């Protein structure tokens, strides 16, 4: 059985102090601390490409769980902010920078905040279908490439980072059944504006979507895995904002301790927000973890990880 052996996160050292920008946007510091929840956002340096973030996450993964590069049979990069214009695919560039074997399949997946859960399912199925013993899933979506620094809705929220997940036949976590969905009629809710080429987000549409759609999706995922809500030790949600994470917890009747917000010091990392928590914030007592990603598309995916 293919499952997750290890997960790592890479965050650039540089931080944007969002708290210091409160007055610029005519909001109280309490709004940033209690509502968006992001007091500092990780920002890559201008000369760092998406593939560079991927390489750093891969190095962090190897440091955590040593393995040989020539054992890697497939490499997937989940991003919507690829190197250059996206041609060639970023995974090919990462493959080259890492010097992975030519027998290693490398391809990109274009998804945003739901991307980690989708990509886990894709890489697991791809590996099992083709007898691949080790595979690496990387997420990296540096929104600083497309942020409008004058936009209150987005510039106080997003951070840069990358994650790497090793999947193998010696997993520490198994992946359960997943629930997926899309609502393309609301695709414009989060998009890079074709004119300005900057990110725009309809905050109200995104809030309504997450508050209405995600709680039932989480309940469906729990049922699909023959669990009860109480049997899940931790709910790791996409860290869209503190307000959204807390709103979902409220609607599910769950305490915030079971639905944590961890992005205060680095920001909304898009598809890297879930693996960032898996890499650093899972405790021994967490045996059963629900993961749920939602956002760009609008798109969502949820699943359950069980410690082996």
């Amino acid at each position, binding site marked *: 059985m293919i499952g997750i052996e290890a997960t790592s996160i890479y965050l650039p050292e540089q931080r944007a102090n969002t708290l210091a920008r409160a007055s610029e946007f005519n*909001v109280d510091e309490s*709004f940033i601390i*209690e*509502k968006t929840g992001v007091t500092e956002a990780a920002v890559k340096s201008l000369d760092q490409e998406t593939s560079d973030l991927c390489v750093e996450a891969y190095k962090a993964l190897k440091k955590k769980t040593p393995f040989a590069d020539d054992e890697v049979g497939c490499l997937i990069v989940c991003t919507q902010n690829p190197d250059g214009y996206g041609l060639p695919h970023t995974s090919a560039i990462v493959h080259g920078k890492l010097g992975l074997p030519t027998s290693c399949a490398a391809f990109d997946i274009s998804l945003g905040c739901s991307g980690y859960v989708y990509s886990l399912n894709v890489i697991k199925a791809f590996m099992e279908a083709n007898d691949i013993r080790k595979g690496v899933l990387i997420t990296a979506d540096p929104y600083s490439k497309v942020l409008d620094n004058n936009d209150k809705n987005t510039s106080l929220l997003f951070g840069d980072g990358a994650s790497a997940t090793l999947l193998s036949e010696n997993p520490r976590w198994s992946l359960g059944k997943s629930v997926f969905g899309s609502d393309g009629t609301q695709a414009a809710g989060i998009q890079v504006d074709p004119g300005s080429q900057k990110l725009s987000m*309809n*905050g*109200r*549409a995104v*809030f*309504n979507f997450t*508050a*209405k759609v995600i709680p039932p999706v989480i309940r469906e995922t729990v049922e699909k895995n023959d669990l009860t809500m109480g049997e899940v030790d931790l709910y790791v949600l996409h860290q869209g*904002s503190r*307000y959204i994470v807390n*709103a979902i917890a*409220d609607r599910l009747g769950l305490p915030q301790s079971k639905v944590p917000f961890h992005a205060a010091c680095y920001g909304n990392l898009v598809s890297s927000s879930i693996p960032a928590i898996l890499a650093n914030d899972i405790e021994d007592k967490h045996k059963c973890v629900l993961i749920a990603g939602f956002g760009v598309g609008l798109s969502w995916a949820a699943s359950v990880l069980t410690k082996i």
Partner: protein
Amino acid sequence: MSITADKVKNIILSAKLSFDQSKLDNDTTFSDMGIDSLDSFNIFLALEESLGIKIPDEDVDALTTVNDLVSYLSEHNAKTTA
């Protein structure tokens, strides 16, 4: 269905917002009550879910008090039941 200020206020309170609820009255703007933009999303969603209506984005900027909401919802109600 008649829309009263009390009904609107009850729906606002059901949204479990963190503002000082003693300040909730009919004419004070939500902003002056300490209700920020994110909390107002929650209020509009609570109204939509409770009343089974849709409040379009283009209408929300003009809805800044309980009385604004009562007028708007009454007008909406009249249109849908006419």
